[in-house]
């Protein structure tokens, strides 16, 4: 399992070298030892990363995730749990864990983490307001205001991260370098490393993004073309707006707001920013990967112009929230109940049948008994007498003759 830790002591010498190059730090002499590199690394990059981090789109998302995590008090680190606690926590999420031993623990930890992120995302999307969310983002940027002029280097760490997540979602999107920021982290099977990352290492560089608005717009346009969705005109408009405002020297905050709201709002929803309803971006972030499944589940529902899940998600919640037969009254109950119904339906005829059988039995017995009695019946003697009488009569007749 790949574990990336921001500890220079664990880096190999070539790795340290490339990190230093990536951060525009002049390398020491070629024959220097590893600790020289390490010192240089911790001096130059360690300080920098405490305040900022060279960013690309992914970092924006990462910082959001970290923030989100900080805001969520129920997000606990599964690595810190004991085996029993881990098992109990998994049970809370409806997963019945097997024995947690050395070979299974890491798997269950990851599973729990995924579940927590999913649950956290859902909770956020239900409760949170888009405005609040984007304002909190702005606060983050204010801290990093001074770092705007930085060189646009992408650190190796970020690249590694990229590669890591590429592996995870590469199957779905071959061109995910561009698409990646569309995805909320909870849909990437997260490695532990991400969880441990220091939020201070992420920097959002608004000016750079503002400068790259065209690129972002282009990439999202290609994405949009792939999805056969209408192309929002306001994307360009937005980019132009944020540019001009920075040129005109408007308050940086508004520029930043435009810049930050751009990648998550526009790209997540695939629709113009100006008509974006005030729903949480998280809904959209969650929406995008689920889309296919929902389309499968409800093929007849037409995609809404917003592309938002609100209407589509409701049936899922409804079905999960209350018992199924309220939702679908036609559905049969449990097989046991069904059986009982069938038995009850057969019950009365069965009882009647038994009664009829008994009556028939009694009748037959009565007939049988009466037949037996007939043997010593007066009728028998009567019959005998009759024959005797006829005999006598014939005798008398013959005598008379």
């Amino acid at each position: 399992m790949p574990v990336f830790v921001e500890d220079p002591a664990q880096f190999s010498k070539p790795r340290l070298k490339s990190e230093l190059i990536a951060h525009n730090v002049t390398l020491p002499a070629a024959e220097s030892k590893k600790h020289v590199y390490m010192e240089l690394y911790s001096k130059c990059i360690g300080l920098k990363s405490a305040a900022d981090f060279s960013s690309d789109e992914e970092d924006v998302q990462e910082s959001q995730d970290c923030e989100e995590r900080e805001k969520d008090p129920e997000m606990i680190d599964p690595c810190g749990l004991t085996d029993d606690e881990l098992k109990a926590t998994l049970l809370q999420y409806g997963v019945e864990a097997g024995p947690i031993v050395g070979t299974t623990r890491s798997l269950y930890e990851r599973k729990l983490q995924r579940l927590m992120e999913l649950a956290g995302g859902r909770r956020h999307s239900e409760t949170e307001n888009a405005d609040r969310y984007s304002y909190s983002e702005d606060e983050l940027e204010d801290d990093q205001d001074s770092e705007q002029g930085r060189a646009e280097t992408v650190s190796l760490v970020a690249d590694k991260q990229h590669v890591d997540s590429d592996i995870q979602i590469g199957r779905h999107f071959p061109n995910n370098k561009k698409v990646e920021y569309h995805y909320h982290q909870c849909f990437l099977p997260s490695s532990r490393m991400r969880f441990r990352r220091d939020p201070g290492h992420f920097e959002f560089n608004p000016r750079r993004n503002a400068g790259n608005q065209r690129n972002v717009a282009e990439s999202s346009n290609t994405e949009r073309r792939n999805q056969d969705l209408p192309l929002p005109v306001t994307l360009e408009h937005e980019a132009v707006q944020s540019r001009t405002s920075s040129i005109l020297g408007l308050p940086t905050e508004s520029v930043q707001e435009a810049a930050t709201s751009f990648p998550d709002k526009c790209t997540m929803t695939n629709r113009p920013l100006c008509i974006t309803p005030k729903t949480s971006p998280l809904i959209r972030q969650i929406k995008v990967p689920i889309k296919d499944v929902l389309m499968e589940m409800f093929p007849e529902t037409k995609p809404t112009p917003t592309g938002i899940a609100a209407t589509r998600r409701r049936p899922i919640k409804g079905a999960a929230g209350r018992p199924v037969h309220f939702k679908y009254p036609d559905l049969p109950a449990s097989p046991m109940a069904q059986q009982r119904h069938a038995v009850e339906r057969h019950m009365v005829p069965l009882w009647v049948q038994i009664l009829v059988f008994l009556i028939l039995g009694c009748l037959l017995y009565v007939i049988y008994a009466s037949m037996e009695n007939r043997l010593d019946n007066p009728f028998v003697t009567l019959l005998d007498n009759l024959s005797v009488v006829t005999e006598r009569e014939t005798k008398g007749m013959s005598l008379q003759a």
Partner: protein
Amino acid sequence: MSTTSQKHRDFVAEPMGEKPVTTLSGIGQVLGKKLEEQGFDKAYLVLGQFLLLRKDGELFTEWLKDASGANTRNAASCCQCLREWCDAFL
């Protein structure tokens, strides 16, 4: 998976006994070697891990991918193989 490999059928056909890990469907020489390095030299050890994960295919494939570097297809094949073996012999 609509069709199963010969290896799969061979494995599922009889009790695994002391078969090596490479007899598992989806585990070839390379993956088998990696598993052996981690102590999983017999098929029943992999079965043990499968059972420890409550026969959960998702977790098992994840583990197999981590442990041996198997790809999704191989891991799924191995998982199905073990599951069918369990259905037959457990």
